[in-house]
């Protein structure tokens, strides 16, 4: 029951990404190309997603706990440090090069397109590299 519900939530996300244009790198890159073939559609994706989530979370957090668990599992990190900002900057560069972000590419796997599998495989390689190394912009604490 829990996994079926989770599957359906993923399906809603996948349909949303597919309709929105986030699964289409041409559209994503044109959003970021204000000086060129600008396509402002992604403002509507971000706006719609943000407002809906903001209101939705307000309702959900009125509950004591989620339906299938005893407590909400929210991120606990608070630090705004070099790792966060540097990591976000690196992600932005990669997004600008490839045109796919993780949330856009995972549903796009369902189109069966080879390019999407190639991108996701490269992301997995990046995850592996980053897990095995310290970020270059994080100063190592000397003992």
């Amino acid at each position, binding site marked *: 029951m829990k996994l079926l519900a989770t599957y359906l939530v993923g399906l809603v996300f996948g349909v949303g990404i597919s309709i929105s244009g986030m699964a289409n790198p041409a559209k994503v890159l044109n959003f970021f190309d204000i000086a060129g073939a600008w396509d402002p559609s992604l403002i509507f994706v971000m706006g719609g997603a943000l407002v809906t989530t903001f209101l939705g979370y307000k309702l959900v957090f009125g*509950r004591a706990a989620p339906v299938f668990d005893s407590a909400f599992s929210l991120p606990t990190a608070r630090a705004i440090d070099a790792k966060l900002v540097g*990591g*976000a900057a690196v992600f932005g560069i990669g997004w600008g090069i490839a045109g796919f972000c993780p949330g856009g590419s995972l549903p796009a796997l369902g189109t069966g397109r080879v390019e999407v599998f190639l991108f996701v495989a490269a992301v997995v390689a990046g995850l592996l590299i980053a897990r095995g190394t310290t970020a270059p912009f994080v100063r190592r604490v000397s003992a």
Partner: protein
Amino acid sequence: MIETVFTPWASLAGGVLIGLAATLLMLTLGRVMGATGVLSGVIFPASGAEFAWRAALLAGMVSGPAAIWLVMGEMPAVEVPVSTGALVIGGIIVGMGVTWGSGCTSGHGVCGMARLSPRSIVATVTFMAFTFATVFVLRHVIGG
């Protein structure tokens, strides 16, 4: 470069569905909907239970285009205006960045921003700025 059509209504509807999914995941499992966490949790599972819900969520996400195809009669457009090399190099850089930055567009940009998390607001402003700058450099400085 591929010209694309401005689609405010479809994009708004898609965005609302993304927000609905984020809300429903918080309602059911009490979890943040972050694509980075879903992917890394499936590839490097911490435990069986941590793997199972992410795998179910991922299966649902991947079913999205087929659902569109069933209703509309065609798959959603995936037009790739960059080279295979750019796709692979960009993908590796994305994977490293989202690991160090603890999230991407869905985790920080939607869920974190909706919770007004200062970390997510800083991360989102940063990656958006760097994506704008990268596209500008690639298309107008180098590409010309």
